[in-house]
């Protein structure tokens, strides 16, 4: 059901060479024998997050001066783009600081984390790190805060696709869900349980925001281009991401698992579908099939990568197998692992958002597949 036996990424190999970097980014998988031309640096992940957020805000700001029929569609693109940029800063940058893998020194990781999480109203460094290390020690257990979060939204294994889609709609738009999420973010910043320096940072940020808005009068811009995407969209995107982060219910949320079981909890969330096999078919059929395929790659899978499955999160299985790897180049590192004796530790699901959340939540008929080991060496 989830991904045919055909090797999806290899089916794209005949496409022009200039399209391959785009396809590698969208799918999360480089061609089997390819080697990176440019290596990414962790700091670029932060730059990308800021750039995407800024681009979304700029688009929204332009849209606010246009007639409603242009404003509405542009705003509907701007909002998740801003949310996706913030998600990059949170789930990529902050996440790696928690592993002390964003900057070289512990202090720098802490400083970056505190600044970003203050701006995003996310939990302070120490508590966040402690909770995240529990997640790594006992992933998907009832001790794992992410498991508890999903349970609070009504997630459960064994639903049919239709039941799960109903649950998705309900949870994405649930005022209770968003209120609880937002309240948690506010509490984490100002209730007094956080370190003094952090409370000072949060309150100073709040004061500067209010003062800045009072001076400029940009209330409407702030409300529409910051508050809305930083709450509803950011939270909905976080929820959709978290649902497929693991196969949450695979081993009944047991705390003690074997290494092999733990490996099965996480899978490569690869995006895309096999390139059309239309050789020998009439010209018009070939053109239609390719047009449809490209449209889906550009309009379905690429936005998913921009808005929900951002950065290195595609290869989240690699992160759990080797948290200390060169995460900024995860797609290449994972391929290298598939050439090693570690190959048997990786699983994958091809498709889009629905395929991934179905597999993550043991929706009836959905599961992850072991990744196929690669042979030979990558080109230089």
């Amino acid at each position, binding site marked *: 059901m989830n991904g045919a036996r055909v090797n999806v990424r290899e089916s794209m190999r005949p496409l022009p060479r200039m399209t391959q970097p785009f396809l590698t980014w969208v799918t999360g998988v480089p061609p089997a024998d390819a080697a990176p031309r440019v290596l990414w640096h962790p700091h670029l992940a932060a730059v990308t997050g800021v750039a995407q957020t800024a681009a979304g805000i700029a688009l929204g700001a332009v849209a606010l001066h246009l007639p409603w029929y242009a404003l509405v569609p542009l705003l509907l693109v701007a909002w998740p783009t801003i949310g996706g940029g913030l998600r990059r800063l949170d789930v990529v940058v902050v996440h790696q600081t928690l592993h002390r893998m964003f900057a070289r020194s512990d202090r720098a990781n802490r400083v970056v984390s505190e600044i970003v999480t203050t701006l995003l109203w996310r939990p302070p460094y120490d508590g966040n790190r402690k909770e995240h290390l529990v997640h790594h020690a006992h992933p998907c257990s*009832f*001790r794992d*805060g992410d498991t508890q979060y999903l*349970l609070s939204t009504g997630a*459960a294994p064994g639903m049919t696709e239709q039941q799960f889609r109903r649950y998705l709609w309900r949870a994405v738009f649930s005022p*209770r869900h968003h209120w609880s999420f937002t309240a948690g973010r506010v509490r984490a910043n100002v209730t007094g349980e956080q370190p003094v320096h952090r409370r000072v940072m949060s309150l100073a940020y709040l004061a500067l925001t209010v003062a800045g808005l009072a001076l400029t009068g940009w209330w409407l811009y702030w409300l529409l281009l910051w508050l809305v995407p930083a709450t509803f969209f950011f939270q909905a995107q976080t929820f959709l991401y978290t649902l497929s982060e693991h196969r949450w219910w695979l081993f*009944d949320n047991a705390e003690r698992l074997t290494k092999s079981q733990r490996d099965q909890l996480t899978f490569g969330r690869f995006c895309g579908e096999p390139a059309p096999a239309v050789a020998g078919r009439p010209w018009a059929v070939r053109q239609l099939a390719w047009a449809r395929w490209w449209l889906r790659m550009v309009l379905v899978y690429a936005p998913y990568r921009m808005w929900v499955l951002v950065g290195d999160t595609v290869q989240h299985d690699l992160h759990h197998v080797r948290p200390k790897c060169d995460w900024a180049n995860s797609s290449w590192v994972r391929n290298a692992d598939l050439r090693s004796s570690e190959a048997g530790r990786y699983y994958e699901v091809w498709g889009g958002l629905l395929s991934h959340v179905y597999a993550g939540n043991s929706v009836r008929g959905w599961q992850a597949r072991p990744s196929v080991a690669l042979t030979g060496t990558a080109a230089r």
Partner: protein
Amino acid sequence: MTTTSALTADQLRPALARHVRRTFGPDRVRDLHDRFATENIVVLRQFCPPELTEAIAAEARSIAERNGTPHDLVFAITDSTPRRMTTVGQPVIRDEGPLIHAFYFNPDMLDIASDIVGERVHVCPYAGEHYVISVLDRTGDTHGWHWDDYTYGIILVLEAPPYTDGGFVQAAPGTSWDKQNPDVYGALLRSQVRSYALEPGDAYLIKTNTTMHRVHPIRGDGRRMIVNMTLASTADLSRPLTHETNDVLFGGTTDPRRAK
């Protein structure tokens, strides 16, 4: 899985959600919150609508008849208080009690419990304490004075005798459990004991780690059957806790059917 009622687990959530929305408005929840803050225990009258109570009771009764383990013992760890009761542990209920399982994992239940206690409550990190069935049906049966390991519990009352036959719950809030030197009488002297009569369909929410509580012994033809569900605070999720009494009384995560 064994389903003993026409109501399915899939139907439970919307049925309970509708009922809770209708009967637990903001004013009532605020009142319950205030009372819980004072007494550390609060009765949620008719938390379950009758049709749901009957379905869950039928399921629990059927499970207890097949798998119930009678106990008659005292626990030194709770100052030698008695346990005379029949119990069923979590692994059996998980397999044979889809309604109880669905009730426990129902986010509406977790939400309303969170609103009342004033902090987010979670599913218990230790599966053995998710839900257990307890039946008192002989004169003298009791779940004696004790505390629990996790912070909160919600108990769904499926059968209850009239208070004249005992079976009501008693609580002494603001007391603490020193497992090395448990002092039930000291706790009784230092705290104020309150008693709460219950009816089928009621639930009670209790701060179990600092509220010593017991079920008053039943007498006559009285019969009491409840599902006890443990809820964790956020702090509980990262606190190492032991489960001695649960493991002895309810079997923890050990499935007794495998031993047979």
